[in-house]
């Protein structure tokens, strides 16, 4: 039977648990200390998905004076920034600043009230979400949204399928295209699982994976669509410091394999260590932009973070 209608906006969930102890319960939680080791040497470079490849350092995506209102709430207020090919851009800000909403505008979940998002020089316009994914923007979710009753491998395969075109007739007669897509798709999906250190759990149901593995699986699923731009929404939420360190290493490896990463993170210290540039939002406005060093010393940022959560400003 279908799930009851879910009016929750995508990803706009309350504060994520900040300590390992507060993690959402998963049916089969592995011991907390266990950190799945990734295999950084597995080649997971993005495949050619038929969109123009931007030169390193060129503008990949531009958010141009985007405003988004929900009734009276101004979730984004004339926000502008851009992402260059090959960089890791941090998007930070206190809770409710509009970070997730920004992702939602970039991935077609919401249409901006005014302003536009340009990708590869062209406005995204009124494209459907799946069309934007096919153009090469992929994301993860702040609150994990895996296909819970499908296996890890199947989850990743859905991502790989984004660029496949097998339909009923092709599948029914097992035409060569079905075989080819299925073979290549499985190979790529397994590579991604291996990269994430999840190859041994390929046949586990997503919902039975430990919390940390679920987070990693979500990243693998997004990578499976061979994105030009990978958007990670608080991927370290609920991780302990050791796990967070591993995750930052993972994000760097992903970038080195040829991806551009936009990273939302609540934890300032974490973001400082891994990003090339940082954009800071507060109450839907951009209050600062610059290198980690510049952001660290920016009075407006310090004030914003001090006002919310002292620990995070350290």
């Amino acid at each position, binding site marked *: *039977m*279908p*799930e009851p*209608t879910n009016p929750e906006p995508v990803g706009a969930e309350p504060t994520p648990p900040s300590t390992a102890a507060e993690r959402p319960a998963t049916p089969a939680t592995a011991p907390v200390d266990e950190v799945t080791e990734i295999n950084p040497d597995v080649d997971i470079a993005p495949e050619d998905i038929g969109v123009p490849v931007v030169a390193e350092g060129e503008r990949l995506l531009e958010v141009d004076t985007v405003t988004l209102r929900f009734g009276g709430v101004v979730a984004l207020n004339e926000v502008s920034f851009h992402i260059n090919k090959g960089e890791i851009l941090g998007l930070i800000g206190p809770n409710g600043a509009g970070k997730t909403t920004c992702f939602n505008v970039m991935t077609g979940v919401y249409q901006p009230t005014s302003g536009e998002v340009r990708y590869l020089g062209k406005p995204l316009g009124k494209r*459907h979400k799946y069309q934007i994914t096919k153009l090469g923007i992929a994301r993860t979710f702040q609150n994990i949204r895996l296909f819970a009753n499908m296996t890890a491998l199947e989850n990743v395969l859905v991502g790989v*399928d984004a660029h*496949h075109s097998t*339909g009923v007739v092709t*599948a029914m007669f097992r035409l060569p295209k*079905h075989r080819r897509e299925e073979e290549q798709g499985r190979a790529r999906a397994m590579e991604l699982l291996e990269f994430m250190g999840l190859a041994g759990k390929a046949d586990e149901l997503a919902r039975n994976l430990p919390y940390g593995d679920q987070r990693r699986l979500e990243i693998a699923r997004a990578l499976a669509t061979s994105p030009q731009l990978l958007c990670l929404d608080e991927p370290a939420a609920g991780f302990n410091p050791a796990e967070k360190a591993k995750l930052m290493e993972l994000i760097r490896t992903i970038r080195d394999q040829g991806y551009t990463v936009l990273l939302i993170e609540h934890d300032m210290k974490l973001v400082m260590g891994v990003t090339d540039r940082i954009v800071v939002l507060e109450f839907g406005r951009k209050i600062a932009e610059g290198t980690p060093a510049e952001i660290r010393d920016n009075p407006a940022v310090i004030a914003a973070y001090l006002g919310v959560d002292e620990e995070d400003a350290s």
Partner: protein
Amino acid sequence: MTTTQNATKKVRPNLNERIADLPLPIKVVLWIIFALFLFALPLLNIPFITTPDSDFGGVLFTVSTYVLVALGLNIVVGYAGLLDLGYVGFYAVGAYTVGVLSSQHGSLPWLWCVPIAILVAMASGVILGAPTLRVRGDYLAIVTLGFGEIVRLTLINSEWLGGAQGISEIPRPPGIELFEVPSIDWSTGVPVVDLGTTTTFLKFGISDFIPYYWLALVVIALVLVFDILVKNSRVGRAWEATREDEDAAELMGVPTFRFKLLAFALGAAIGGLSGAMFAGKSGFINPQSFELLLSILFLAAVVVGGQGNRWGVILGAIVVSYFPERFREFADFRVLVFGLALMLLAIFRPQGLLPPRRTLRAKRADARQHVLEEGEAGA
């Protein structure tokens, strides 16, 4: 929480896995034996299984129609997660397409009408689905419920479609009379070959319904193969992803609307095919054959069996259609017993008699986890 009982439970391969592990030749032989048994079933007259109060061949045909319908509805409800309460509408569209083209307003042979019936039912599925599938959840249930009733009321009120009297003299499927197949007689207590009661292979007549059942078996086999091939592909994954989390699926590149419409159209096509079979067998159709109750029974077959598992919904269809025929002497209590059975099922097997493999896999994984945790605690 982990109970000692759960923790000590061994992880044993289930029947399905043990069958899957058999060598291929043995599997093929087992399948052939099983298929032969199914074809011979109406002739074997096995005591207790056979229906004393109604023609067993006819009952088996009815059961197979339900199986066919359940397989179609399973694509919509089980795979794509769309609640369809008016599936009987497509069944009616299929039956009436055959009726109109072969008897009421034309004289096409039955066999020609079948593909047209499938296409018309499919088109009606697309027409109904296109505006409604963009909206989520409960809305679809209401719209499909309305669709089933609108179809029935249209049939009653349209003279062109035969009105309340319906359409008669629908031609039978074409047959070739090749040989006689004897049946088994158990009246003496031991099985004896009865050369007096035979079925003509393959004559689609008006009194012996066994050939219709054979035809239905072949059609079911074809639909099953189609189901397996399509489900084990990008299409099946897209359906499952959409059912699990529509937003996430869309954001992973699944054109969810297109795939929901596809599921709806394929389900409708199989419903229409079942209707066409029904029309060809009964030779006569009227609006009373397509009551709302039938939609509910179809859905019950899918839910009782275990939506999402094709073998489960087949079992569900058999349960829902066979038992009322087998125990006709309790006809007065039929609805009561049925209601009770459903309640018990909801309490003890909420996932259906044969839950989809995902539930089974999850249970086994849970059990493994318990064993693991237990092992660590002991160390």
